[in-house]
């Protein structure tokens, strides 16, 4: 059951992105920014977390889930460290994913050559 939920909800978030891409002039990079910001705001209100409980990876794998992770991490850090957590929480929560992406991208850049388009 959790696979079906993940498939449907994750698919629907992608459809939203596709409609924005086809029907408006918003470029794909801007859609990514928009989705992360939206996920972060919804996460701040605690709404996205309910969504994650329902859809699992369907909510965490798309980019709004990345925004939610930032909001969640920041609030947790504020609980633990007070005002300083406002600054350190966001980066701390994305550190794993971003560092992994930097490492793999660097290795890929060294190993692979550009392909013919």
């Amino acid at each position, binding site marked *: 059951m959790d696979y079906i939920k993940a498939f449907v909800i994750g698919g629907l978030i992608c459809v939203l992105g596709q409609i924005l891409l*086809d029907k408006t002039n918003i470029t794909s990079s801007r859609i990514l920014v928009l989705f992360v910001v939206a996920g972060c705001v919804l996460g701040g209100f605690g709404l996205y977390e309910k969504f994650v409980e329902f859809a699992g990876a369907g909510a965490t794998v798309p980019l709004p889930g990345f925004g939610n992770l930032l909001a969640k991490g920041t609030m947790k850090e504020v609980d633990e460290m007070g005002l300083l957590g406002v600054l350190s929480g966001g980066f701390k929560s994305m550190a794993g994913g971003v560092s992994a992406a930097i490492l793999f991208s660097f290795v890929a850049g060294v190993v692979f050559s*550009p392909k013919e388009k």
Partner: protein
Amino acid sequence: MDNSEYSKRKYHQMVDRVSPRSNILVNSFKAFCSGGAICAFGQALSNFFVTQGATKENAGIFASVSLIFITILLTGLGVFSKIGKHCGAGTFVPITGFANAMASPAIEYKSEGLVLGMAAKMFTVAGPVIVYGTLTSILVGLVYYFVK
């Protein structure tokens, strides 16, 4: 008689005829299937890491890192762009799009050097996402600090 107006209209008709129809229904269906499949796969990875003894939260991070790794490997092999062409938002809205947006320019621009080529271009798309994500999280944190 306005000749340029006429040829302009002719030109637009011709462009309409030869340019591929981007059908929003077909595109959305493809995005739904591919995006959904990626998320279901993410769920499978996450479940797998839970059986290996990870907490639910850490399993999610492991799943994301695995998806990032697979995406970047496929990007390097030149496969991802071929899949992505058909899937549209289905591959760029999930975390796979973020990973591809970093790896693809890293490979593309390495000829311009390791610093200003590979490293700088890695953040052409990822940079703005991180900047606005961080700014929003600071705002969320501030509101939370004063409201809670």
